[in-house]
């Protein structure tokens, strides 16, 4: 079977039937996304790899209980990853001095889409759209949102880390999320 041709839901269904190769296919499709989320939280490649492995083992264990109406598979994976990574970050008291989030550079919205399968095309389109939206945000809003989402920092922790007033951080996050939401709902423009 060519697992690259399967959509996400089919892969999950196969994994629920203990198809090891289907899990391998899901890993090939999403390991970079999962690893990137973990790495932006924990900033330790070895630990980020451990978290990535934990996430896919969790998928193997709980595929039977996944319901499509709960959300996209990619969102499910990143949610598991984020929560696991923030847990590890807090439990291990891992704290890194680098407050940089590795946002992808915006690429042309007219760049060619992958030709392989519908799932990859859909993912690539969503990635381009979100990257375009994030690129429209002021740098300070991007940074504050990134620290809040990927490292689970509170308003106060972000303010302390950046040396900024608490009210300023609250405003940046509120305005950043408001703008992000509106951009994702609108038609993208180059």
């Amino acid at each position, binding site marked *: 079977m060519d697992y690259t041709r399967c959509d996400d839901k089919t892969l999950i269904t196969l994994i629920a039937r203990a198809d090891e190769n289907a*899990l391998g296919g899901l890993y090939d499709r999403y390991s970079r996304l999962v690893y990137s989320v973990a790495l932006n939280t924990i900033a330790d490649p070895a630990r980020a790899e451990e978290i990535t492995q934990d996430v896919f083992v969790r998928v193997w264990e709980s595929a039977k209980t996944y319901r499509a109406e709960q959300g996209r598979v990619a969102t499910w994976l990143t949610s*598991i990853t984020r929560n696991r990574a923030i*847990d590890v970050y807090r439990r291990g008291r891992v704290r890194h001095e680098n407050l940089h989030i590795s946002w992808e550079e915006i690429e042309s919205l007219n760049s060619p889409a992958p030709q392989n399968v519908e799932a990859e095309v859909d993912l690539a389109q969503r990635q381009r759209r979100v990257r375009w939206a994030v690129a429209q945000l002021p740098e300070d809003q991007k940074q504050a949102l990134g620290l809040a989402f990927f490292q689970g920092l509170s308003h106060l922790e972000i303010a302390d880390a950046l040396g900024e007033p608490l*009210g300023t951080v609250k405003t940046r996050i509120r305005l950043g*999320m408001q703008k*992000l939401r509106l951009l994702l709902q609108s038609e993208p423009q180059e």
Partner: protein
Amino acid sequence: MVADRQVNEMRPDEAHATEWLPAYALNILTEEETTQVAEHLAICPACQAELHLYQAAADELPLALAQAAPRPALKARLMKEIHSRQVKAVGVPNLTFWQRWAGFFRRGAPAWAMALIMVLALGNFLQWFRLNQASGRDATPMRVVALAGTKDATQAIGTLVINPTGEYGSLVVDHLVALDAGHQYQVWLIKDGKRASGGVFSVNPDGYASLELYAPLPLNQYQSIGITIEPVGGSPGPTGVKVLGGDL
């Protein structure tokens, strides 16, 4: 500026919690703010709909990251572990005596492991106590707290071991129902009526889990502990059924 207001400064005539929803979606409000927004959301469909849109936007943020790749060896490690789990799940025929003996412990692992952990914890305490007596130091023991199942989880059991300073705690639970992909168990530490999250976890197919707890304050400053069923990733405040609890 409006954003500098606290949630509890919402005027009585304010119908919605709109300006706090973005931070609520990111789960970065204070405990008090989270509780107040959650109470408002419980009675406001309009704000629930707004929150859903902010959560959808937040869910897309990982797609904006620059994609880094793990080392190729990771896939091999993963597939080896998955295959090992699959072999265990299917079973191995014609077990030798020693394999059957080992299997007895695996089958009874959750209860057996719980008993072993209790014995080890007690042993560690006795050892620590003896060492501290010998050195003349103050012998403050580890605290061992038993958690009891509620009427919604009568079979569930749990044990929390807290180190003398309260800085670290290890929680072991057993006989909890394995939840669906949309839910997890969440630990709550309660002090003066306020609840702080101690983390989220899932149990294995046997209903067993162990985890280290991390809380804003030392664990020995809390008055009680509870575990509820929440949406995957946890909630800002308890929303689901309580399954385990105990006094600290």
